[in-house]
């Protein structure tokens, strides 16, 4: 790439992907949001307030931790973990909700809605809503409500109303549908905080920009610690917000490999997975064109993953673009491999990762041994595993 990366275009297109595919009632609020976002993106007061919140409320910068024992054990590249699990509320999701909540406040919105899969984005949204005294409604698939009950309780403690969505596959995509239906009904006073780099323009670009602090910090921290750029970045991809947050500031650094890890569930060959970039096709869902899990008739297929946060049939449109241009590579990790990653990090480094992040860990276990000892991998540890204790205990036959 000789030209500096400059995506999306003014109408939110990343090549053929992205865009603004919404029903007419949502066009005005999406345009209003875009105008506010463009205005505040460069507003010094807004940036100062956001920086302050990220430092004192979220706890940034998050450390870049050299996993020395794990690196030694794997016998290859040096592994550095970007510790987004140490953020307030336990994942990278808060970087974005803090930003969008500040926008909501400036736009005079009094009511916040959100969708959530694993519940991390729901908790991060309920948290900022509580802090700003805004009404908060979180939509969550009924299946996810059952498998992430701890986070449901956290959201309720924070004063949010959690609505269990019973339609369709009762997971993240259906929660998004229901949040869109709420938004279309309450457009005047409601701000929809989307948790990932999906949805209509400007969400994919806006969420990326709020999450890009992960990559900016990582770059500086890596230079400070090692005097050079990493050789590879690894992050899990559901909707893809933690991955794009890490990748984005490195896109023009061609020597850095960008690797996104999708959830293969029972294995891509079984059809029971959540890996649209690896095994899907382009289509339109939830406001943008991107790779989707859909059948020949264009109906969305149910997805499968051990991690609720990766259980989504689409993916951010910028990932679709990075895949097609070859700038990023997308691989997949099965449920069982993710569990290996989960146990490895827990036992080797004393860090319990979220099941979503465990997919990135599992791929790192394949990648690192094939690299030289003086090479560097930065892995995004996007969230902590506390929320998954019930799921894990159940798998081990333990009643908590």
């Amino acid at each position: 790439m000789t030209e500096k990366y400059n995506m999306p275009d003014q109408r939110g297109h990343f090549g053929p992907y992205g865009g603004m595919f919404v029903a007419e009632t949502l066009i005005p609020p999406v345009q209003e949001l875009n105008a506010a976002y463009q205005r505040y993106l460069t507003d010094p007061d807004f940036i100062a307030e956001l920086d302050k919140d990220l430092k004192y409320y979220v706890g940034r910068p998050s450390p870049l931790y050299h996993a020395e024992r794990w690196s030694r054990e794997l016998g290859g590249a040096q592994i550095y973990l970007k510790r987004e699990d140490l953020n307030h509320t336990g994942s990278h999701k808060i970087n974005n909700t803090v930003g969008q909540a500040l926008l909501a406040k400036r736009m005079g919105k009094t009511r916040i809605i959100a969708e959530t899969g694993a519940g991390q984005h729901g908790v991060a949204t309920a948290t900022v809503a509580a802090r700003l005294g805004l009404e908060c409604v979180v939509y969550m698939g009924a299946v996810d409500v059952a498998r992430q009950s701890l986070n449901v309780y956290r959201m309720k403690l924070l004063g949010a109303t959690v609505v269990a969505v019973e339609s369709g596959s009762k997971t993240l995509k259906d929660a998004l549908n229901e949040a869109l239906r709420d938004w279309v009904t309450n457009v005047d006073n409601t701000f929809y905080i989307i948790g990932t780099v999906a949805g209509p323009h400007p969400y994919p670009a806006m969420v990326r920009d709020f999450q890009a602090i992960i990559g900016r910090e990582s770059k500086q921290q890596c230079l400070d610690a090692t005097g050079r750029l990493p050789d590879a970045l690894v992050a899990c991809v559901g909707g893809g917000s933690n991955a794009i947050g890490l990748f984005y500031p490195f896109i023009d650094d061609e020597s850095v490999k960008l690797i996104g890890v999708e959830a293969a569930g029972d294995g891509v060959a079984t059809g029971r997975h959540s890996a649209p970039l690896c095994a899907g096709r382009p289509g339109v869902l939830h406001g943008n064109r991107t790779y989707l899990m859909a059948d020949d008739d264009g109906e969305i297929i149910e997805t499968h993953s051990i991690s609720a946060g990766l259980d989504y049939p689409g993916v951010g449109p910028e990932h679709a673009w990075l895949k097609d241009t070859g700038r990023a590579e997308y691989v997949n990790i099965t449920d069982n491999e993710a569990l290996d990653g989960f146990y490895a990090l827990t036992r080797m480094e004393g860090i319990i990762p979220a099941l979503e992040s465990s997919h990135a860990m599992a791929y790192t276990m394949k990648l690192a041994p094939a690299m030289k000892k003086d090479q560097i991998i930065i892995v995004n540890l996007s969230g902590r595993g506390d929320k998954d204790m019930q799921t894990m205990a159940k798998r081990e036959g333990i009643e908590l």
Partner: protein
Amino acid sequence: MSRLAATFEELTRTGRKALVPFITAGDPTQDFTVPMMHDMVKAGVDIIELGVPFSDPMADGPVIQRASERALAHKGSLRKTLALAAEFRKTNQTTPVVLMGYLNPIEAMGYEDFANAAQRADIDGVLTVDLPPEEGQECTAFLKSRGIDTIFLLAPNSNEDRIKQMDLAGSGYLYYVSLKGVTGAGHLNTDDVQNKLQQIRSITGLPVAIGFGVKNAETAKTVAGIGDGVVVGSALISKIEENLDNPEQAKREIVALLSSMRQAMDS
């Protein structure tokens, strides 16, 4: 002249308004749809909106969501919807049929293939909920070159620029969504709708059909007094849902409701 234009011309000539029912193709079963369409024509409808079942109907309320789910459970699809429309056309050459649905099934088929298939099925118009004009130029062009109208939505919060854009991009008619919300929701506010229609009519000469919130003969009559057409969907599909074990009863109740609307609108 397109079938839609001819229909609205004839309605204007006779001083009547269009009654436009919406049902989802293949709900509750594939063999229900075509006889239902013919029965609706007998009950006095002017245009039929045929819903294409989709797994993720984001702009629809629970009633139409469940209609989609039932149709999909019986192998409903865009292809199947086109086949049903073609079958209807074998014995009805006058009533316009408009496909209403979401973009992804059309993306999966490909715009050009879809336009060809729609032409073969003798479809008159296509309304794609999540395809606004700025994203829809390519698809609209394929349809237009085959004589098929593209119907766009307008909403209570659509501003003047937006209405102008729809006037340029759309043909056949414009569909005014009478309230902020999903299909089958709430009650429409007559004054609000009247005011908005005044603004819309000052900008476009296209006929305007009004939908969302039309539940019975009374609301149909009120809406007919404001727009050029009245769209009714969830209220009909509720009859299907209430009579899943007796589809013939569902048909009778739908015909009765549409007849009462027709009568109220014409009186």
